[in-house]
Structure formats: structure tokens, C-alpha cells
């Protein structure tokens, strides 16, 4: 699985979970789901874009 797909799956699971846990009304659940999902995926992409100019360096040693 690609890194992006894993991030999307993770964001999807958490967004559905918190929308169902924190809101009871269906419309409010959908709104919260979209806020969380877009926030997580969009935030991840934004951080990736900001980090893009920086070199990754050598891989970390396996402990």
C-alpha cells in the first residue's frame, strides 16, 4: 500500500469514528466527518508540500 493510501484509510477510520462518537444528529455527523477527514488529509498534504524542498537524508538505523 502506498503512504498516501494508508493516510487516507487512517483518516477515514478516525473521521467516521469521531463523527459517530461525538455527534448524534446525522447532518452534524456528516459535517464533522468532512471537517476531520479534509483536515487530516489536507493537513498531511500541506505538511508534505512544505517539507518537499528539504532533503530526506540517510535512512535512520534500525534499533
Amino acid at each position: 500500500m502506498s503512504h498516501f493510501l494508508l493516510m487516507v484509510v487512517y483518516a477515514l477510520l478516525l473521521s467516521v469514528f469521531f463523527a459517530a462518537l461525538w455527534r448524534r444528529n446525522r447532518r452534524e455527523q456528516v459535517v464533522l466527518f468532512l471537517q476531520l477527514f479534509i483536515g487530516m488529509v489536507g493537513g498531511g498534504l500541506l505538511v508534505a508540500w512544505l517539507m518537499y524542498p528539504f532533503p530526506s537524508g540517510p535512512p535512520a538505523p534500525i534499533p
Partner: protein
Amino acid sequence: MSAPIRSPETTRPETPAAKAAAAAALDAAAGRRGALAAMLAVIFPGLGHLYLGRKARAALFAAIVLVAVVIGAKLDGNLYTPVKDHPLTLLATLGSMGMGLPYFVLLLPLHYTGDVTAQGYDYGTAFLLSAGLMNLLLVLDAWDVGTGRKE
């Protein structure tokens, strides 16, 4: 002339002491219900909500937590166990154990440990730890619903 009709209000306890006793009995029953729901939620994700009659929510929560566990295990993530001289692993272990029965099924019969050299190790660890933490939130939610603090 007909006899006066006794409304339900007239049959209820009127003295403050009787009212307090009735309220305490109700609180005790709600507390027991909440405690049992929370205990069931600790054992298996969604079980507490199922006990409280929230079948759809129970199925959704169980599915989310179990999907996270399966993905985490497929990616060979770390299923935390306490490591000597690393106190933070104790917290991570408690968080992972929050998933309840799946944690012990992975650990004992399946002897799952994860693979630090696997490509998806870090992602898998995040999924497994999140599954445990999500179920801990479900325990609190089951407690709140059971005691009547939440719908």
C-alpha cells in the same frame, strides 16, 4: 359523589427524605448499568453499546476498531508490550490493551509481535495503537450512555 382520583403525583413520595432515597436508588441503578456497559466495552469493542441497545452504533464501532487492528497487524506494526527500562512502553501497552480481547488474541494464541524491518511497521503501529485508544474512548462513551449522562 365519586371518590377523588389519585394522580400519579399523589402516590409519589412527598417527603424530601423519600425523594432523596428514590433518587439515590435511581442513581445506583444507572451506575450499575454504566459500569456493566463499560466493562463489556473493555472486553470487546462495541459490546458495551450493544448491551445498551445501540445496535447500529455497536456494529459501526466494532467494525472500525477491528478494521484498524487487522490493517495494523497486516502491516506488521508493533503490538506494544512493556519493555524493561523503557517506561513509556508501559503507557503504549496500556493504550494498545484498550482494544480488549483482540489484543490478547494477537498476543497469546497468534504470538503476534510485529516486524520492525517491515515497510509498513510505523503505519501498522499507528493503526494498532489507535485501535486501542479508540476503544478506550468507547468505554467512556458506554459509561456515559449507561449512566444517562449522554443519549
